[in-house]
């Protein structure tokens, strides 16, 4: 168990800056997900912790010690690679014993630990097999086993589930989570799947083009995204974003979309709107699950006609558990998510009701959150 701290870390590959001024702190024993679009530098960041990439600027501390000049083997971290990187010429047992062999542990102790890891991961029957005779899920387990035998200070996972099929992925998700609870070790988990990040992690770091966009708990990211990027990245289906301005007419605050008529906002519902200056271009963000149909949603509290807009249904998607409706409004296309079934087809005319108290306001120019 150890704390991991990044202090204005940067990395260049040739002329391209891959990481810029990355700063965060992972408290000891925490499970952290590192998430971002492809090519944003997640793997690079992880490899810098492991010591596989040089740290060009700044410092990385593990357990209070700067590790910039430490060789990978002296950092006491274990890494699970995306393609597992099992040693093809070694059996499962030898794969797991390798790190203990390198640490010059005694044979008896090594075997004990290897068996312990095999038991935790259910690999007892596979110990004599070679990696090429294992299924994807089994290889994944061996890669995890190789990491846990050593009981390292920090675990690094680089998209370990991305090669598995959907069902196995859900199963391994739970298994990794259980492993974390059992070992209590610091774990940093790279993924580009936001569901994985949200369900597994205690803390999520969002990276984009080598910069940190936001650090927070999954619910913080969901409830208060720091900017448009995070807002669009977290949540599925993605948050609806409408461009426009906020206007105050006769004491009534309205959202004035780029096209379409102004939408009145209940007093005090949207603190972010009060921070805008008149005429400032903004983005109004509302998650699909925070738009309801009048009378059908749970939040038809007072029956006031606030935030209702007319729309035409474009597309209906049914998952069984819930229904996604994509509809076109004067201000643009809007997606909503309804729990349960709803009988509608493309071409229907509906009223959508925007729940402003759960909406977000962003500056259209900087993308930063307001309020």
């Amino acid at each position, binding site marked *: 168990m150890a704390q991991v701290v990044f202090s204005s870390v940067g990395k260049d590959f040739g002329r391209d800056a891959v990481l810029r001024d990355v700063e965060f702190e992972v408290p000891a024993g925490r499970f952290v997900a590192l998430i971002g679009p492809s090519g944003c530098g997640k793997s690079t960041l992880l490899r810098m912790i492991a010591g596989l990439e040089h740290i060009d600027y700044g410092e990385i501390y593990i357990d209070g010690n700067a590790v910039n000049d430490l*060789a990978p*083997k002296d950092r006491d971290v*274990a890494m699970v690679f995306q393609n597992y*990187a099992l040693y093809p010429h070694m059996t499962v047992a030898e794969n797991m014993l390798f*790190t203990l062999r*390198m640490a010059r542990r005694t044979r008896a102790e090594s075997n004990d630990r290897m068996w312990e890891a095999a038991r935790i991961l259910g690999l007892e029957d596979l110990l004599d097999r070679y990696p090429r005779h294992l299924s994807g899920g089994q290889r994944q387990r061996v890669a995890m086993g190789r990491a846990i035998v050593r009981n390292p200070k920090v675990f690094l996972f680089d998209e370990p589930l991305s090669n598995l099929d959907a069902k196995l992925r859900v199963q391994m998700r739970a298994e990794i989570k259980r492993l974390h609870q059992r070992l209590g070790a610091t774990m940093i988990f790279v993924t580009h799947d936001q569901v994985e990040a949200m369900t597994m992690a205690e803390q999520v770091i969002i990276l984009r083009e080598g910069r940190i966009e936001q650090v927070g708990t999954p619910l913080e990211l969901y409830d208060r995204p720091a900017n448009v990027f995070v807002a669009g990245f977290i949540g599925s289906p993605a948050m609806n974003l409408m461009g426009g301005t906020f206007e105050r007419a006769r004491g009534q605050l309205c959202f004035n979309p780029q096209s379409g008529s102004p939408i009145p906002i209940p007093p005090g519902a949207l603190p972010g709107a009060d921070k805008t200056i008149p005429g400032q271009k903004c983005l109004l963000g509302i998650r699909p699950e925070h738009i309801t149909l009048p009378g059908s949603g749970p939040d038809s509290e007072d029956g006031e006609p606030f935030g209702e807009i007319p729309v035409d249904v474009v597309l209906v998607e049914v998952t069984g558990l819930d229904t996604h409706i994509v509809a076109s409004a004067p201000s643009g296309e809007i997606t909503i998510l309804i729990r349960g079934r709803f009988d509608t087809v493309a071409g229907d005319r509906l009223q959508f009701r925007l729940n402003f108290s759960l909406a977000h306001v962003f500056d259209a120019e900087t993308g930063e959150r307001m309020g």
Partner: protein
Amino acid sequence: MTTLPLPAQKQLPRRNRKKTSAFYFVTVYGGVLLLLFLVLFPFYWMVTASIKNFREISIERTLIPREVTPKNYIDLFEQTSILWHLFNTAWISCFVTLVTVILASMSAYVLTRFLTPAAEWVARISLYAYMVPSIVLIIPFYIGLRMAGLVNTHAGLILSYLSFTLPLGIWMMRACFQTIPKTMEEAAVVDGANRFEAFFLIALPQALPGVVSTSIFVFILCWGEYLYPVVLINSDKLRTITITLDALTGGGQNIKFGLLMAASTVATVPILLIFLVLQKHLVRGFAAGGYE
């Protein structure tokens, strides 16, 4: 299930496939047989001639020996020191192969893993170095080795062999390491291995097929090398097998075919044995490497 008659249209492509596969069969196997004949007939002639008597070889020219005689072999071992030459060739070839494989795999590893921009040039230069014909280098080599006092020694011969086996070995091993992904070594390094351990315990075992084929290639080159020993060695005791064979042609004036074929057979057998032994490893090595 299987006894149900198949619909007619389903049988049609099948008949077509049969036709093409018959054509395929004839061309491929015919070609292979022809090649085999071309390759194996000289061997057949060599081995049979070595057990024929003079009349059958030179006058009757029989295809199948009527009378089998060990005389050529007895003469060979009595008149020449072929066993001694065989021993010289064997140890020099083994030594050069060993040194080449060790040095080449290590340099090739460094070239593919560390010096990547420079490596392209080093690799190209080593290929060019291999392509330079020995005949061009032989005089400078002779002068250099004479200054070092290594003319007419096995050490000098070994050095001269390395001048062409190393570039070849580096080139072959580099191609081999390029196909091995780096991630396993990175995993090993994170697992606590140092660079040497990552090389010897992770990269090299995966490169085993390349090591075996490089060894075979280098060994055969050394075994059959003629130019360097003929120029650098002049005492009979230090000779290699190619020179023995050369001596038996008697300068083209008085070729002792029986002896020559017996000597050729003796010179070929070790190579065949090595092939038979290593071939198994070659196949096994391929089976053990990579799984993705």
